[in-house]
């Protein structure tokens, strides 16, 4: 109890509170801007924290992390360009709602779903860190492989009605993920003679290219299009509010997605994007009205956003209890602990309860401030829909090019981004869904590494995937998922055949 009060004392100072607020605001803005990304923001802010108190510095980074993970949804909803990879699933239904003039509804849901998920994630970190970490340790290579396969089966769900094209896009993503260093031997492969490709295709260039650049190219075709909204957008309009029915659809989804997101966050190497897609896919598979998804289903927004923000505190579980960062961002934050002589891991967790208590208090306070700042900012964010495309998309192009260059310091990656932009443009033009490409790219290494590590562990036998119970369970889920998705898509396709689907972007 004393520790809790000591923690409160450390966090409720003007310094720490303002650092959290700064972190959240910076995070939301960076997350929302396609081209700038959260790992970059955390890396840039990292040296600043070296001069601050440990809790103050971490408070700012956690603020950026939570704000940024949420901020990606703003641009996903408002302009159909996910600000972060994890928000790509949010765009599917969020942007559809905006097109229907219901942007406020989607924005509200993405904020509230994010916050509820963060609260659940915070509680899991504080109350169940040790058991959750014990679960994460059960996820060895065979389980990673099986989870990856399960997640991959949900690609069909994200295909927006054209499963074959979705699967093709997913396969292309898998293929692209194999370029660069062979993760198991360290040999270079598929570098096409470019030194710059020895690290593989830049993830950030891929994301910005297929989403931001491609969307800009599509918009360029219609130069005189009016902005989506004329006049001030009033959030108090009924179309921008969440109805009782919206909550009835979304609450059960959030309470399911958040715990799944927590577990995904606790398993090192998966991360927010996997959680968002997985939860979106599961939610659509379990829905009685799957045809609404992609057309503005509010529970789609809820699933994706609670899925990605549930990861944000859970990634600290393996960092604090095992000394292993949960994702890219916590790996960068590791530096902020270490530079103050706090080496995350069981010794810190068990022996420095004063710091841990203060850290927990700080994480909870950050969630609270996130709600306040997010809600206060909403009337501002929603006005984006009033900006004419002829201003909006050139600005996005500038940010994309500078963002990629700042992140990677490489012109090769800038051209890569433009190339992926063209690829994305043609995919959209030919009604290929883009999200499966990204999922394939993210899941490819997980599946490959999991598969090859497992087979070395079992000395060449594939039985290991079935004899380890968790792995077998995930593979069974994958099989069920394939059947459900297959049957549903077949039915939907049959229902749609009499009147052929109008191509997207009509």
């Amino acid at each position, binding site marked *: 109890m004393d520790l809790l009060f000591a923690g409160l004392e450390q966090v409720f100072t*003007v310094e720490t509170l303002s650092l959290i607020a700064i972190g959240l605001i910076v995070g939301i803005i960076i997350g929302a801007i396609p081209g700038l990304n959260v790992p970059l923001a955390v*890396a840039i802010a990292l040296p600043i924290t070296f001069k601050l108190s440990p809790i103050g510095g971490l408070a700012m980074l956690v603020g950026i992390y939570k704000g940024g993970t949420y901020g990606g949804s703003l641009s996903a909803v408002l302009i159909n360009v996910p600000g972060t990879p994890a928000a790509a699933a949010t765009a599917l239904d969020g942007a559809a709602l905006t097109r229907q003039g219901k942007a406020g509804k989607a924005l509200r849901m993405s904020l509230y779903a994010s916050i509820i998920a963060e609260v659940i994630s915070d509680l899991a970190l504080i109350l169940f860190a040790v058991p959750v970490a014990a679960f994460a340790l059960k996820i060895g290579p065979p389980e990673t492989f099986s989870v990856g396969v399960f997640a991959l089966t949900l690609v069909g769900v994200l295909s927006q009605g054209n499963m074959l094209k979705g699967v093709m896009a997913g396969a292309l993503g898998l293929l692209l993920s194999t370029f660069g*260093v062979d993760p198991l031997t360290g040999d270079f492969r598929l570098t096409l003679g470019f030194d710059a490709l020895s690290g593989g295709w830049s993830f950030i260039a891929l994301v910005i290219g297929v989403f931001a650049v491609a969307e800009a190219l599509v918009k360029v075709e219609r130069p005189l299009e009016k902005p989506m909204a004329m006049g001030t957008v009033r959030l108090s309009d009924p179309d921008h509010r969440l109805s009782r029915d919206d909550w009835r659809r979304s609450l059960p989804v959030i309470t399911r997605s958040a715990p799944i997101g927590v577990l995904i966050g606790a398993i090192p190497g998966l991360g927010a994007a996997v959680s968002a897609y997985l939860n979106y896919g599961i939610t659509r598979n379990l829905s009685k009205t799957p045809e609404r998804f992609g057309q503005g289903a509010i529970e789609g927004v809820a699933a994706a956003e609670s899925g990605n923000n549930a990861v944000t505190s859970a990634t600290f579980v393996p960092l604090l209890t095992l000394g292993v960062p949960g994702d890219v961002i916590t790996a960068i934050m590791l530096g902020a602990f270490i*530079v103050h002589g706090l080496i995350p*891991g069981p*010794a810190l967790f068990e022996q420095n309860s004063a710091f841990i208590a203060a850290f927990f208090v700080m994480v909870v306070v950050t969630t609270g401030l996130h709600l306040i700042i997010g809600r206060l900012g909403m009337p501002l964010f929603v006005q984006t829909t009033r900006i004419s495309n002829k201003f909006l998309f050139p600005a996005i192009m500038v940010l994309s090019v500078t963002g990629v260059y700042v992140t990677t310091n490489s012109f090769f990656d800038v051209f890569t981004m433009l190339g992926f932009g063209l690829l994305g443009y043609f995919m959209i033009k030919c009604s290929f869904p883009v999200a499966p490409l990204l999922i394939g790219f993210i899941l490819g290494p997980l599946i490959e590494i999991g598969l090859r590590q497992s087979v070395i562990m079992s000395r060449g036998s594939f039985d290991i995937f079935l004899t380890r119970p968790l792995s077998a369970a995930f593979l069974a889920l994958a099989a069920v998922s394939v059947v459900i998705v297959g049957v549903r898509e077949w039915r939907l396709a049959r229902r749609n055949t009499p009147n052929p689907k109008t191509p997207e972007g009509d």
Partner: protein
Amino acid sequence: MTSIRKILKTLAIVPVAMAMSLAAAQAAGYPSKPLTLIVTWPAGGSTDVIARLLAEPLGKELGQPVAVVNRKGGGGSLGTKAALDAPKDGYTVLMTTSGNHILTPLKKDVGYRYDDFVPIGQVVAATLALAVRADSPWKSLDDMIKDAKANPGKYNFGGVPFGMPHLTLNALATEAGVELVHIPMQGGAPGAKALLGGDIAMLPANASTVASNLKAGKMRALAVFNKERDPAFPDVPTAKEQGHPVYGSPFVGMAVAKGVPQEAVDRLRAALQKVANDPDFQAKAVKTATAITYLPADDFGAVWARDWNAYEPVLKKK
């Protein structure tokens, strides 16, 4: 409150510093503009942390700010190549490590060799430890070796493929005549998770990666692969003490491309020597579980040649 004031003060210094650097640029002599310190590994990693700790005092010493830039990828070769291709004016400095400097160019032709660079000085020689779970029956290196001899090919260990920990444990296995199976890992941290989760039986790793687990008693170190015991882990015997003279110690240091004017090289060497021997800087570094093991330029160059020759036969064979 004081810290806020500190931030504001720091911010206020920026324009002043910029004006000062302009003034300095007009005066002749190196350095007359900010320097770039290239880190070939991601932000937040152990090399990055030490580079960022160094950047500030080094900047003070040189009278010019030093900016840390992360250029990761290709086993560290992309950043190393960037340092080599930069104008040879002494304003681009490479934070170099065994990985990007020795192991990567030995594995594949990446367009440079270790001697394309001029050493400035070694900053860190990391300790490699062989860790096992706390519930492992092995209490010493001999326990492990006896068990592994009786059960050839039974035990797994983890490590980044052909990283220093992997190569060092391979050397131990060859020396002791045992057969261990390597499970490739994507880094030290995933290796630690695999050890705790029971997927591997032992983990050769940078001691700082497993320090917290060692301190908390979740893992036990069977040996360190240094010539002497590491003062941070005085109870852990060296491999040599246990009858297996196997060594491995990844370095971190500074280098510039060959062709940089001698004036700049000398200035950097003097500045690094001063900073690395500053007790204040050393104390800061120790807190991050990294003891500073400074070596002057010539000795650091000798380490390069030694490691290059030691690992060439192993890696070229592949």
